[in-house]
């Protein structure tokens, strides 16, 4: 038996898991319409590659990954694209986001797809490419693109691969039912992950409140001994990545670091199955298992549901009693958030839809002052000081918050759960984190503005300088000219030229005929010009150029002839006088 460790804090809320595991996984079928948000993962939104009116087959790529940390999106069923538009999505803000909408034709026709014959013959980069093109993003919660996570940092070896089957949050049983029914598939997926990462050891960790899943996994693992199934006492939030790592290995992920920094990679069991489907069958990630539970639904159960299915469709299948349902929560009661619109779709990270009655999940009582009881510090799984963070958050003392490691908070809600004053602590932390990030962004932007402003100032100064330099150069040149002229004893050449021009004009005004020599030279120039024009005319006649050009040449020759006769007669007159 492997030694398991414990992490600091943690709580034991009512599990409420039994309601939704009475029956097995049920298919949710194909709804009339599928709504696929372009951003279902952490990182850049995908870029649509289809247009409205296109017919798409099940499994066809409809949006491709934009950038390194991004995930491809596939059509979960066949049908026609009826819109690429803003739709409500499951997000705490309730804001709409761009989605691809498919009107399903209910044929559910697959696009041709094929997996690899034997993944053992493929090298890691090929398999990562497959996983990436299948659009797989972590199915446990945050939705980080799996291929990017598996790639890790270059030159760092993976010592331990941890498969997360913990599912510690109350009500949710999606991973539990998956492990019960598809244990063999999970282990196959794990084998592929092992082939990619080549870890020294592989651990599949789950809490001891899932005896059926443990039995199923042990049975499946009996034939293949590559995975060690590790069970440990139930406690919330054991399923947090950093907490699970501490339970299984006794190591802590450094503050601000990633599990990769200590040679560990964590993957969810759902992700393992998605990897198996992608590699062995060539099936992209187009469906997932989602728990629909809460007292307001008649038959709480788990559905295998196509991504993009409106939540309303699932709620109808589970028999929602709208009059009893007070609000709709995506995720569990601890870390989930309220969804305002039931038409919001199921996305890659939707592990649970909770439709509680008011009695089940009452609105929080009004917050009272903090009495510094310290229960929150005892419950915090990240060993933080929640009450201290609360004071700093109220006073917006961001520097102090960072000093108290606010960014190591996993927002599990354990502190709020134990707080006797019912203070919504997590909301303070979330708001403060967002404020700090906003401040960093603002600072980066103002730095950029400063650089641009300074660049502009230097540019303007340079332009001024250049203008000034040009003016100075001109001035210097003028001075030099005068100097030269005076040195050579003569007058300024420009002044001399002006004088010459003036003299000439005066002479012209006195009478044109006074300078027969000048008139004769003008006559000569005209004659030469005429000669050239006639030559050109003859050439163009010979080579048969465009009629227009010929006409133009003729006209100019004619003009020259006229001018010549005029000049000749003037000259003869002058000669006569």
């Amino acid at each position: 038996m492997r030694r398991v460790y414990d992490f600091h804090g943690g709580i034991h809320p009512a599990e409420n898991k039994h309601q939704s595991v009475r029956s097995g996984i049920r298919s949710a079928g194909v709804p009339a319409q599928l709504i696929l948000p372009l951003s279902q993962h952490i990182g850049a939104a995908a870029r649509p590659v289809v247009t409205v009116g296109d017919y798409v087959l099940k499994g066809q790529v409809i949006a491709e990954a934009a950038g390194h940390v991004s995930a491809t999106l596939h059509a979960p069923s066949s049908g026609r694209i009826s819109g690429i538009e803003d739709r409500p999505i499951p997000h705490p803000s309730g804001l709409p986001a761009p989605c691809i909408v498919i009107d399903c034709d209910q044929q559910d026709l697959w696009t041709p797809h094929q997996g690899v014959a034997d993944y053992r013959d493929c090298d890691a980069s090929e398999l990562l490419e497959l996983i990436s093109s299948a659009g797989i993003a972590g199915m446990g919660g945050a939705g980080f693109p799996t291929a990017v996570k598996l790639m890790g940092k270059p030159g760092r070896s993976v010592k331990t691969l941890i498969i997360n089957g913990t599912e510690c949050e109350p009500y949710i049983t999606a991973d539990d039912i998956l492990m019960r029914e598809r244990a063999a598939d999970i282990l196959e997926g794990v084998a592929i992950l092992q082939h990619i990462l080549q870890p020294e050891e592989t651990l599949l960790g789950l809490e001891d409140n899932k005896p059926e899943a443990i039995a199923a996994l042990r049975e499946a693992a009996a034939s293949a001994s590559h995975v060690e199934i590790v069970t440990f006492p139930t406690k919330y939030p054991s399923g947090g990545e950093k907490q699970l790592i501490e339970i299984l290995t006794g190591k802590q992920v450094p503050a601000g670091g990633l599990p990769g920094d200590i040679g560990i990679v964590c993957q969810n069991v759902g992700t393992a199955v998605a990897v198996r489907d992608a590699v062995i069958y060539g099936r992209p990630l187009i469906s997932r298992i989602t728990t629909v539970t809460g007292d307001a639904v008649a038959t709480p159960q788990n559905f295998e549901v196509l991504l993009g299915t409106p939540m309303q469709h699932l709620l109808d299948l589970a028999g929602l009693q709208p009059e009893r349902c007070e609000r709709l929560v995506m995720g569990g009661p601890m870390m989930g958030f309220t969804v305002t619109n039931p038409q919001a779709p199921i996305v890659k990270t939707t592990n649970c839809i909770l439709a509680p009655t008011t009695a089940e999940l009452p609105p929080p009582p009004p917050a009272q002052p903090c009495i510094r009881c310290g229960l929150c510090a005892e419950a915090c799984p990240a060993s933080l000081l929640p009450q201290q963070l609360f004071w700093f958050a109220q006073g917006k003392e961001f520097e102090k918050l960072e000093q108290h490691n606010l960014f190591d908070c996993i927002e599990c809600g354990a502190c709020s759960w134990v707080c006797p004053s019912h203070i919504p602590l997590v909301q303070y932390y979330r708001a403060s984190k967002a404020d700090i990030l906003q401040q960093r962004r603002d600072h980066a932007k103002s730095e950029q503005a400063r650089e641009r402003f300074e660049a502009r100032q230097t540019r303007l100064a340079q332009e001024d300088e250049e203008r000034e330099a040009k003016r100075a150069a001109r001035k210097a040149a003028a001075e030099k000219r005068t100097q030269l002229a005076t040195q050579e004893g003569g007058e300024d050449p420009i002044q001399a030229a002006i004088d010459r021009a003036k003299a000439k004009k005066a002479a012209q005004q006195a009478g044109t005929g006074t300078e027969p020599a000048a008139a004769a030279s003008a006559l000569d120039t005209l004659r030469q010009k005429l000669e050239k024009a006639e030559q050109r005319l003859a050439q163009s006649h010979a080579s048969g150029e465009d009629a227009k050009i010929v006409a133009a040449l003729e006209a100019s020759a004619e003009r020259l002839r006229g001018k010549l006769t005029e000049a000749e007669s003037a000259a003869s007159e002058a000669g006569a006088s």
Partner: protein
Amino acid sequence: MMAWVTDYPLLAALLALVGLGAPFGALLGFAAVRFRAEGNPIADEINAILPQTQCGQCGFPGCRPYAEAIAGGEAINKCPPGGEATIQALADLLDVEAPPLDAEHGEEKVKTVAYIREDECIGCTKCIQACPVDAILGAAKQMHTVIASECTGCDLCVEPCPVDCIDMLPLEESLQTWHWQLPAPRSNNLEIIATDSATAERAA
């Protein structure tokens, strides 16, 4: 030597002090030249806190000149785009009391971005010359447009536009900019137990 010291104690003390002072003075003088700080480090720090909108609402031609003025003793509450947060940061840096924002220079407003109604733009380039961060793109007699990601929302382009085709639009909230807000502050007259309300009434 010792005899001379005991004979002329006053002179000896004077000599000793001068002997100490001269080399240390020389050392300080050398250090002042050798380790001389370029520019004004305080002004740099102040400039890093200012929001760099370069709007001139403070009465100085840009953030840098205002930072230098603050370093020279100017009031720290003349920057409306920075608002209370900037005043607080400046007060912390300079270790002075944080005064409220000077209303004479404007009020703290929501962040905006300039937007040119492109159909109406006549391509006069006046706004391009006014933009302190070169965030407007265009050429003479060609339509101009604002690079929204570079715009600091300083308003300086609005005034010179001869056809008034520039709007200052508030930044729209999107999924990228949305974030959780702090819970509403606790109301002081919560009726938690019966005696609470009585206390509140008495206080009021």
